[in-house]
Each structure stands twice: as C-alpha cells, then as structure tokens.
C-alpha cells in the first residue's frame, strides 16, 4: 500500500514534468539563492541592495504595481526612510478642488509606474512594452535563475563565433532585427531591452562596501533578483515557517491516530 502510494507520487511527478519543462532552450546559469529550498529565507541586506538597483535602473522603464512603499518596512527600512523614499516621487491624484494634480508620494501609495499607460510605454521603447516586474520571478520557469541569467546573457552578435552560434542552435536564417539586442537566455534570442546592467553601474553604500560586497555585474544581478523574488512573494518566509509547524502537527496527529487505530483494532485481527 505504502509502496504503491510512493510509486503513484513518483509517477505523478514524472507525468507533470514535461508540462513544466518548456521555456528557454539554453541552460540557465548556475547560481544559488538563499531563499531556495524548503527552509530558505531572504537575505534582507541583498534585498535592500536589489531595491537600490531597481530604483536607480529598472524603475525608469518597468512598473512594480503590486508593491507599495510601506512594504519596504518589511525588508528592514526604517519608517523615516520609507517616508523619504515615497516623498521622492510625484503621484497624480485628485486634489481638494477635485482636479487631477501631482502630490508627493506617501507610504500607502503603490510604486509609481514610469509611464501613464501601455501606449506611452511602447512609444518610449521603440514599440516594445516593458512588463510589470511584480511577479516576474513567479511568471517564468525557474524565474530567479532566469532573471539572473537574462541580466548576464547579453552578447555582441557581430562578435559571435560560428562555434558559439552552433552551440546555441541558432537558426541558419537568424537575423538580429533593428533596435534588438542579442541575449542568450531570452526565448528567440532577441530582446527589445538594451542591456540594463553593467559592471560598477551602482554605487553601493559604505556598509556594503566595507562588508566586501562588490558592484560587478554578477553581484548587481544577484541582488536585483533577490529583490524581485521578494517582491513576487513577500509572504514566503511566513509560509515556510507556518508550514514547518503545520506539518509537524499533522505528523504527530497522524502518529497518534495510528496508535489509537492499532489499539482499537487489536482485538479483531
């Protein structure tokens, strides 16, 4: 019985595997994050640095509509810091006279989107639409590793050797379209986003530099991924903590019921 159940579970897993095995054809970069695995947690220092990267680079094009400034309290920023960050942006809202007007942001506001609407975003990006990043890590297969790889995956197409092209199984008639960049990890290999991150682009604060945190591209990409992973599931740690308690409770109760069942049935077997 138990063996059958285990076999069924394995069969089910095998069955569902192909449904999930699609996505980018190229193997993603091998990188480890502290939030992976059943007990993994966020490294909030990394999340904070990642927020800085998002704010200084990605926020120019990508919205983060599900996150409010007040949520930054959860990554360890002080109330004063959150207020100051919110106040840096101007939010369009009704004023007391009932007219649309700009006012400084408040912690309760959601992150201000860089463009008023999709058409405006496309107009500013050669017709391409920079998607909202709130759920990006959940919305791609192996999302964290994908995002990290995407940041590092830009290549100069003109300089690719034939061997490299062959390795990527690039179609013979592949042509990089105007305004497009070559990226190894983007499905179809050409993306409308210019390489957003480069070595040394962000100046991390003194705390980070004294702790020996570099600001080369892999580090920036890793921190940014950490931030967006948090943004896509801010309740992950609570989920895992609750899970440990729930599973232990259920295991003990199962054991108890098994013992009672054995006792009850002892006289009829």
């Amino acid at each position: 019985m138990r063996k059958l159940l285990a076999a069924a579970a394995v069969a089910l897993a095998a069955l569902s595997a192909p449904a999930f095995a699609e996505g980018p054809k190229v193997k993603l970069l091998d990188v480890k994050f502290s939030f992976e695995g059943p007990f993994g947690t966020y490294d909030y220092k990394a999340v904070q640095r990642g927020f800085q990267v998002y704010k200084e680079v990605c926020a120019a094009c990508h919205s983060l509509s599900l996150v409010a400034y007040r949520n930054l309290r959860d990554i360890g920023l002080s109330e004063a810091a959150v207020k100051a960050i919110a106040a840096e942006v101007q939010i369009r809202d009704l004023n007391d006279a009932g007219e649309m007007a700009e006012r400084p942001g408040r912690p309760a506001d959601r992150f201000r989107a860089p463009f008023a609407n999709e058409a405006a975003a496309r107009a500013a990006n050669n017709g391409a639409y920079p998607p909202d990043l709130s759920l990006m890590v959940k919305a791609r297969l192996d999302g964290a590793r994908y995002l990290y790889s995407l940041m590092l995956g830009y290549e100069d197409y003109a300089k690719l050797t034939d061997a490299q092209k062959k390795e990527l199984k690039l179609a013979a008639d592949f042509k990089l379209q105007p305004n497009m960049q070559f990226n190894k990890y983007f499905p179809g290999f050409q993306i409308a986003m210019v390489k957003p991150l480069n070595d040394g682009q962000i100046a991390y604060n003194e705390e980070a530099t004294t702790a020996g945190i570099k600001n080369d591209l892999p580090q920036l990409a890793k921190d940014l991924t950490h931030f967006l992973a948090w943004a896509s599931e801010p309740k992950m740690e609570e989920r895992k903590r609750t899970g440990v308690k729930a599973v232990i409770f259920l295991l003990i109760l199962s054991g108890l019921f098994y013992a009672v069942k054995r006792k009850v049935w002892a006289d009829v077997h």
Partner: protein
Amino acid sequence: MASTQGGPPAFNNAVVRWIDKRLPIFTFMHHEYGVFPTPRNFNYWWSFGGIAMVMLIIMIVTGIVLAMNYTPHIDFAHDSVQRIHRDVNHGWLVQYLHMNGASFFFIAVFIHIFRGLYYGSYKNPRELLWILGVTILLLMMATAFMGYVLPWGQMSFWGATVITNLFSAIPVIGPDIVTFLWGGFSVDNPTLNRFFSLHFVLPFVIVGVVVLHVAAMHVAGSNNPLGIDPKGPQDTLPFSPYYVTKDGFSLLAFLTIFAIFVFFAPDFFGEPDNYIKANPLVTPPHIVPEWYFLPFYAILRAVPDKLGGVLAMFGAIAVLYILPWLDTARVRSARFRPIYKWFFWVLVLDCFILGYCGANPPEGYFVPLSQVATLYYFFHFLILLPVLGKLERPLPLPNSIAESVLKKSAI
C-alpha cells in the same frame, strides 16, 4: 439494509432526547455513522471517499473566504488574487489551500474511482451509486475548469478560449452555443462574471449529489476487497470506533502530504504563465490545461476531426456511465479475476500515457501514441470488459468475509 438494526439509542442528554423525539437526527447519525455495520476487511483504499468529502469541505470553506476578497472583473481579477496574498491576513494560505486543494481533491477522487474499478464496486446493487459518482466527477470537472479561469492569467484566458471553442464543433447550433457561453463574441468580462457565478454555486450542487451518493451507499451497503456480501454480524464491524480511527489515520496522512505541497511547493501543479495577466493579443507557446484534464485533453486531440475529438472526450466519461452493464463478469473483486486484474493495471498505465501525451505538444510520436492510447481506453470498456466477463474463469470465492480474515491472521 442495515439502518434499521437495533432500537433507538438511549441518549443521556435531555436536550438531545428532546430534539431527537421530534426530529430523530441523533438516532440517524447513530445508525448511519455510529453502529453502521461495515465490512470488517476494508483496506486503506476505502478511505478515499471520506478523504474526498473532507477535500470538498476544504474547497468550499476556502472558496467562500476567497470570494469575499476577489474582484470578478477582467481589469482587476488578476491583481485581486495577488492582493489576497499580500494584504489579506493569511490570504496567501487560503489561496494556496484552494489552488492546491483542487489538485488533491482530484487525486483523492481518481484513487476512489480506480478503487471502484478494481473491486467491481459499480456492479449490482451499486449501479446507481456509481452513476451518481460519475455525475460528481463531471460536476467537479466543470467547477475546476471555471475556477481556473477566475485568476485571469494567460492560461486561464487561453484555456477558456480553447475549451469553450470546442462547442463550436457541434453542427448547426455550435456557434450560437459558444456565443451564449461567452456572453459575447469572445472570452471577456461577461464570461468571467458568469464563470464566477457558476463556480460559486456548482460546489453546492456537488454537495447535493454527494448526499445522494452516500445515501445510496447506505442502502446498498459498502462493497469490500473480497467483493462478497457480508452474511452476518461476524462479517462486519460498527463504523465507530473501527473505521473512524482507520479513516482518521488515512485522512491525516493524506492531509500531511497536501500540507507539504501547500507550504513548500505551492506552485508545483501550476503554470508560470498564469502569473501573467491575461492578454488576448499574446498566445502562449503551449496551452496546457491543469494536470487532471490532461488524459481527456489527449483524447480530444487524438482524433483528427474537431467534432470527433469532442465526442471522444465526452465519450470517455459516457462509457463510465454504462460501465455497470458493460462488465459482464459476475464476480466483483479483481482479486478473484486472474485476467481482469492485469488488464486493470494496463488501463491505469494507459491513463498515465494519455496524461503524458496531453502534457506535450501534439507533434512527432505523441500523435500516434495518443491515438493508440485512446483506442485502447475505449477497447478496454467497450470490448474487453463484455468479452472477458464471459471467458474468464474466476477463482473460487471464500465462504465469508470472517473466514477469509481469520485465515489470513492465522498464517
């Protein structure tokens, strides 16, 4: 049969006595769940009916809470589910329970159905019980399909588009039916609203059919692994405490596995694409339904003709309705059917192969594979079962349940 055994129980509590005299619900519960004589030889496969019942309750409770916070509008639905995760106290828990609960509900019910297939539980006198069960399965599929549309992600939208479009294959009235289902000329806000309404109400219809299903079982009495009828009190045990403790244990073990997925792999059964808001202008590269529909999806696509595919898909359920009359064997349990026993496992394998085909794009070797598997599925029910029942020589049946149980423990 058994519900008339013994007189009314003596209740100690005066309030209970007062109520019971006017409306004998306590006597009813006592007969049907307290002393109800249950075959003494159930194995753990008999726990899955009760497990399915608990999953149904979990789905209804979590569903009601979700509905309190969900916004059925194409502009807000996708975000509202995320707001439940972020801004509703324990909303993430409720949403993950409901999302994974659907999968575990189907796991429980599929095991429950295959239990019935193995032990011949659909045979006389349990035909109607079985038919009510198949009806529950149909209702569950409709409910799950509409529920999956509600978060309004890419798979929600495109799944709904593909499946509702199937009805256009019906001659003459097909296109009108599709317009009627959509409430317009494409899957849009009216579709989302009617699906929400139906998704809310259908589970209560399921509750109604489950009540009939369980009532029918209490009339016919349970089947058991030997497939022979209990002959007297030595063959049965009172439901409480024997099966309360046994089913309680299996339920808790099942819930433990459920909890592991909810808390540690909540997106295991899901598609990343459904975390992208629905976009009618962008078709995802592969549109796949939820895993529990994959075998049916494979049957649908195995037939080269659209109408034929739709008929085959519904036919796969229709054969279950007439199964009690297709199987001509007089012996119920596969334990005593040396040949059927093997074909049962071939059918299980066939269903897994169909599921595997359904998960993959209909190209290359998946096309002939799904066609062969589909043919085999219908061959099993329509040809093998009627013929095998006539040809197979069953093993000798034991004289009674008690004799068989006691012999086993003596070895």
